[in-house]
């Protein structure tokens, strides 16, 4: 069985429109990504040049640390964003990270020393644009979607607070020349100079800014507590975002007194911390990408591994290894039922528990199998799905095998129930004979004896007939005793296999040499199977020897006779069924009979 390269088996995706749009996206990716990378490099270098040219109006200044913070945070975000976008083309997190990285450079362009009006205006408007973009990316990570209404409201609040209230609005009323900055380039979005309004926008922007920063901080921490395990993929991302938000809040709080965001010595220090937090965020996403890549590589190996028909349970093991989840369970649905079984056909309960998630594998509308796995795997979007697609053929194949095994188990259970019922019937009959017929005949013998003692001893005829009747009854009793013992020797249930075989050797017409017996008790069905194997195998032989031993979880009964009764093979069919019902084996070789029965003594 061969499975094509990853992604080729996606029956839901072969819609032509979807394929076309995927193609378009790939085209955009092919040319877009290098272009964006080039833009980021150029933009970053230009920004650095501006900051060095006019260090007083910048955050980065001329220091090496400033330069590293400037380029490090921006480029890391863009690079990770591009990589993420490459891996997850339809996911918003990638573009958001790229945008956040580019926006990181903008504050430096609000520098009065900047000589382009476009750059200067962009710097004024986008001064805080990085913050909502980065936090949006963190909250939408890893699926690309904001999961709750609160998240969406918080992010919208942040965008309007950062870009509108602290960006567009103050820029619209800010006239750099009018406020004394003579060398400043012109503000392209100036509507009407109004310093009072400018001040109001800034002061309210800062106050509201503390509110949305707090709101986003709470949302990040809330999601952090909902993420199981700090080592999960999302935790480092959210933690970095929370630190970034805290630094920003600190910066805002400090700027409240002045009434506007500036670049004092304190602000520059805060800016460096922001850079560190954003770089950490980028690293967290990058690390998760790396882990995902490793996981995907093992999923790819999975395809190769499963190409050779694996042993039962091999698919589960391969998937568990590929997904690095040893607790993974693979449950196959029994067709036409809601029951699930494992690869060996044993019943399984499928349910999502704490920290456990269930992912179904469907063929059309029908669930074929279900994976119960660590819920954290869901943090890596598409990973479980990919693994399942990779294993699909093998899973479907194994499902069929599991179905057959489950049927076999059912069959075996029903066979052993039949044997058990037959044994119960034998025992009941034996007991009934013993407590009923045999007792009555003994009672009858007693009655005859009493009758005889009351006869006239001279009446020889009557005495003789009474004695004849008593003799007949004794013979009947002997016959009954043999029948009862043949049906089921009570010593077998009372004292076990060894005692029963000893008794058989004592009562049997065939002299039996006992070469070895296993003392101790076994399950009744096992003891019965072993006993009746011996009883049937020795019947009719002139001599026999019996060896019973226990080896590797098997009870092995060997019976060797001098000759094989021609009818014995037919009689042993019933014994073979009995042994087979216990998942054992009966082999007949001329005069040798061997039964192997699995036993747990």
């Amino acid at each position, binding site marked *: 069985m061969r499975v094509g390269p990853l992604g080729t088996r996606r029956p839901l995706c072969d819609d032509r429109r979807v394929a076309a749009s995927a193609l378009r996206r790939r085209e955009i990716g092919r040319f877009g990504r290098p272009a964006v990378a080039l833009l980021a490099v150029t933009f970053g270098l230009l920004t650095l040049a501006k900051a060095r040219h006019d260090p007083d109006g910048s955050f980065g200044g001329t220091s090496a640390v400033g330069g590293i913070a400037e380029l490090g945070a921006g480029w890391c975000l863009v690079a990770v964003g591009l990589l993420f976008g490459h891996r997850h083309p339809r996911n918003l997190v990638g573009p958001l990270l790229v945008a956040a990285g580019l926006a990181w450079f903008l504050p430096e362009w609000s520098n009065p020393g900047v000589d382009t009006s476009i750059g200067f205006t962009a710097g004024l408007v986008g001064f805080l644009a990085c913050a909502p973009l980065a936090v949006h990316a963190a909250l939408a990570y890893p699926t690309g979607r904001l999961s709750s209404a609160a998240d969406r409201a918080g992010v919208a609040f942040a965008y309007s607070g950062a870009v509108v209230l602290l960006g567009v609005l103050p820029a619209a009323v800010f006239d750099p020349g009018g406020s004394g900055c003579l060398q400043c380039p012109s503000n392209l979005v100036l509507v009407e100079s109004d310093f009072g309004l400018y001040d109001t926008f800034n002061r309210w922007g800062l106050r509201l800014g503390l509110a949305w920063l707090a709101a986003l901080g709470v949302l990040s921490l809330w999601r952090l507590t909902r993420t199981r395990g700090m080592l999960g993929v999302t935790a480092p991302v959210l933690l970095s975002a929370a630190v970034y938000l805290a630094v920003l809040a600190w910066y805002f709080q400090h700027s409240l007194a002045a009434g506007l965001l500036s670049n004092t010595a304190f602000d520059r220090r805060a800016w460096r911390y922001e850079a560190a937090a954003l770089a950490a965020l980028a690293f967290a996403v990058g690390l998760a990408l790396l882990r995902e890549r490793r996981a995907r590589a093992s999923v790819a190996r999975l395809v190769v591994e499963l190409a050779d028909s694996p042993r039962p349970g091999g698919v589960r093991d391969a998937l568990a290894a590929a997904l690095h989840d040893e607790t993974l369970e693979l449950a196959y649905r029994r067709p036409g039922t809601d029951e699930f079984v494992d690869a060996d056909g044993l019943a399984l309960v499928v349910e999502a528990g704490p920290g456990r998630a269930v992912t179904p594998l469907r063929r059309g509308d029908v669930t074929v199998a279900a994976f119960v796995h660590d819920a954290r795997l869901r943090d890596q979007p598409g990973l479980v799905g990919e693994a399942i697609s990779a294993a699909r053929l093998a899973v479907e194949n194994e499902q069929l095998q599991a179905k057959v095994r489950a049927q076999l188990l059912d069959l075996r259970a029903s066979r052993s129930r039949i044997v058990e019922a037959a044994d119960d019937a034998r025992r009941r009959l034996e007991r009934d004979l013993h407590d009923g017929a045999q007792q009555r*005949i*003994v*009672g009858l013998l007693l009655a005859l004896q009493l009758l005889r003692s009351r006869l006239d001893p001279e009446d020889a005829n009557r005495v003789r007939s009474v004695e004849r009747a008593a003799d007949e009854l004794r013979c009947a009793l002997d016959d009954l005793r043999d029948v009862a013992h043949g049906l089921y020797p009570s*010593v077998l249930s009372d004292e076990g296999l060894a*005692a029963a075989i000893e008794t058989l*050797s004592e009562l049997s017409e065939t002299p039996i040499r006992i070469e070895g017996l296993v003392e101790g008790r076994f399950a009744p069905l096992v003891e019965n199977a072993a006993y009746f194997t011996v009883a049937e195998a020795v019947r009719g032989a002139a001599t026999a020897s019996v060896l019973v031993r226990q080896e590797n979880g098997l009870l092995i009964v060997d019976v060797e006779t001098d000759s094989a009764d021609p009818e014995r093979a037919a009689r042993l069919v019933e014994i073979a069924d009995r042994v087979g019902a216990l998942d054992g084996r009966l082999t007949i070789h001329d005069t040798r009979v061997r039964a192997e029965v699995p036993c747990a003594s």
Partner: protein
Amino acid sequence: MRVVIADDAALIREGVARILSDAGFEVAGKAGDAEALLSLVERRRPDVAIVDIKMPPTHTDEGLVAADRIRQHHPSTGVLVLSQYLDARYAMRLLEQHPERAGYLLKERVSDVGVLTDAIRRITEGECVIDPTIVSRLLDRRGPVGGLSEREREVLALMAEGHSNAGICRRLFLSPKTVEAHIRHIFQKLEIHEAPEYHRRVLAVLSYLRSA
């Protein structure tokens, strides 16, 4: 001589009581299960208790267990266990703990007054009693035993049935000296080197015959 009878089948209990009282025994009590039997023995102190091997509640080996307790707590009371089972295993279990004043007979022997009264009498004299059918079955199965003569075989069977030397003398019309000589030869031929004293020899012979 005082006897008590324990059997869960009233028909047999009453029948045996009748036969024994007709034969001159004093039937001191009758019980339907092991517990009633034990309290009966406690109160009446009979010479012999006649016990069915299968009694309520489980109908497996209650009689044997009760017999064991009687022999343990009332050494002067003998027990005669009646059973439908031919195998020597139960008989040997009875003798293993208390190899005197104990007997194991097939149940139908109750209709044979001679055998029954003889067994009771032997038990009160301290002998043990094993049903002749069990012994002859063991012997027949073995064919010739260790090159024993016909007479020696007879002596061996009587030993297995629990007869004392005096009993064997009476039955075979032999002198005590002859019987002793036979017994010595038998143990030599069977390679049972240490000729066991009476109380252990029944078990020794039975286990020899049983191990084919």
